[in-house]
């Protein structure tokens, strides 16, 4: 963020009538100027209602403890896909796909349990050496003395290889996973004619591809990959094609965008905070704590959405049945009532795991420990192999109020 734009954003955020603040504006995220708006809402209107914003009318929850209260109250704050699911954008009703993150109990619980063994501690231990050998291969193949895009060559590559392994997806086609992830998270703007239909047509190709894999595996012995697990588990084996697609999108986005953007964010933060990078280099035992801090500081998913299914009072505000409620993890992670010096990137915090990036309650990120492990291994190997990585230009950020991430980060490794 350059000095002028943040000053302008600060002035605009201070001058704008509260009721006009619309956090669904993607430009705020692309330009990284959303911060003063969050600061103002946390201070003046922590439970804030925006009527008729870009994504309709919605409540914004911006403080840590209020977000925790909503996230853990799934009896009132529903994730149900037919009500709008877990993101702010309301897809046309026929394109609202069931997926377990966008379900309430008991169905959510059953489907989640069908896939969660893949990221359980025992299986993670088995994946560790594979992740390490891939991280090493990727780092060793990076060009020297020339500028390249860290997002493409490292962040996408490592996470997409991992995802291909989890699905036992044909390795040479793995960038399709990246592509479908981007398609799924790109929300058509209101002025884009046919945007939702185009998105849907691309996702149906994803379903077609994965239906082939399903058919192969449903007739084979159960194996330890996500497609086989879905095809054989009693909770998921009778899913409709659209429900299969919904769950695929969930697993692809969940396993792809999030870790990808924390990998990129991590390098950027280390470059912006050389004292912290030095501290970690001198004491690699800090890597796990630094990784938690990276995930807090990046917050790769800016929000999760719920729909109230009963009237409820929250922080003195009356939320009505049917209201859209948006938990801004990105803001809660900068709440100084809960996190000391939240705007500073500090690799040795006393309680580094205290952050909202994975959510809390029954929908908490199922792959959180796999994500942490990938980041930890990558940083361990970077410290072993690459003495210096220079960030040589500004990052390009994604224009989205949901995926909080980067499309490019130009870097250079001196030889």
């Amino acid at each position, binding site marked *: 963020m350059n000095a002028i734009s943040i000053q302008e954003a600060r002035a605009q955020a201070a001058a704008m009538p509260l009721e006009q603040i619309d956090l669904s504006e993607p430009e705020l995220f692309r330009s990284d100027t959303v911060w003063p708006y969050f600061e103002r809402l946390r201070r003046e209107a922590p439970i804030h209602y925006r009527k008729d914003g870009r994504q309709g009318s919605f409540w914004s929850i911006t403080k840590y403890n209020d977000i925790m209260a909503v996230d853990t109250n799934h009896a009132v704050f529903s994730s149900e896909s037919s009500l709008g699911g877990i993101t702010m954008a309301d897809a046309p009703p026929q394109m609202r796909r069931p997926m377990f993150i966008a379900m309430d109990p008991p169905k959510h619980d059953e489907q989640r349990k069908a896939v969660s063994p893949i990221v359980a*501690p025992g299986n*993670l231990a088995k994946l560790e050496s594979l992740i390490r050998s891939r991280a090493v291969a990727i780092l060793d193949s990076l060009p020297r003395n020339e500028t390249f895009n860290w997002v493409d060559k490292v962040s996408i590559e490592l996470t997409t290889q991992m995802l291909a392994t989890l699905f036992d997806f044909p390795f040479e086609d793995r960038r399709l996973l990246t592509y479908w992830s981007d398609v799924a998270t790109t929300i058509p703007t209101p002025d884009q004619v046919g945007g939702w239909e185009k998105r849907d047509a691309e996702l149906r190709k994803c379903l077609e591809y994965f239906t082939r894999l399903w058919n192969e595996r449903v007739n084979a012995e159960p194996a330890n990959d996500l497609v086989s697990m879905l095809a054989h588990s009693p909770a998921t084996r009778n899913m409709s094609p659209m429900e299969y697609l919904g769950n695929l999108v969930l697993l692809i986005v969940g396993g792809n965008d999030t870790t990808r953007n924390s990998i990129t964010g991590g390098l950027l933060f280390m470059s912006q905070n050389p004292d912290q990078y030095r501290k970690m280099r001198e004491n690699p035992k800090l890597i796990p704590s630094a990784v938690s801090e990276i995930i807090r500081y990046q917050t790769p998913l800016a929000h999760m959405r719920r729909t109230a299914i009963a009237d409820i009072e929250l922080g003195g505000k009356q939320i009505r049945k049917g209201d859209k409620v948006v938990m801004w993890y990105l803001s809660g992670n900068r709440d100084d009532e809960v996190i000391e010096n939240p705007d500073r990137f500090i690799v040795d915090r006393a309680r580094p*795991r*205290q952050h909202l990036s994975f959510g809390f309650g029954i929908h908490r990120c199922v792959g959180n420990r796999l994500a942490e492990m990938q980041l930890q291994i990558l940083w361990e190997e970077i410290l072993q192999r690459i003495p210096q990585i220079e960030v040589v230009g500004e990052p390009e950020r994604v224009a989205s109020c949901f995926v909080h991430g980067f499309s490019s980060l130009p870097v250079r490794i001196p030889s």
Partner: protein
Amino acid sequence: MPKVTYIEYNDAVHEVDVPIGRSVMQGAVENGVPGIDADCGGACACATCHVYVAPDWLARVGSRGEREEEMLGFAAETQPNSRLACQIKMTAELEGLVVRMPEGQH
């Protein structure tokens, strides 16, 4: 102050004094006992302070709460004696409590 014995997955034993009124999770975190992550800080919202209560202690520790039951449903490798350590408050009766940690907190 009552003593609690925490046994890591690798069988390393930690004996710690935990003040009455603190939780078994806090007893671990505040004394640097590894193996309990406690991401949510004790809100019963993450299941990363999963422990196995030694069978002799189960009755004295009491049973799981409703929300605890729900969160434990998503933890890995749960057993009938699984509890969330943040939901066990120390009392004088729990002097000598023994808990084991799972392979990982998830």
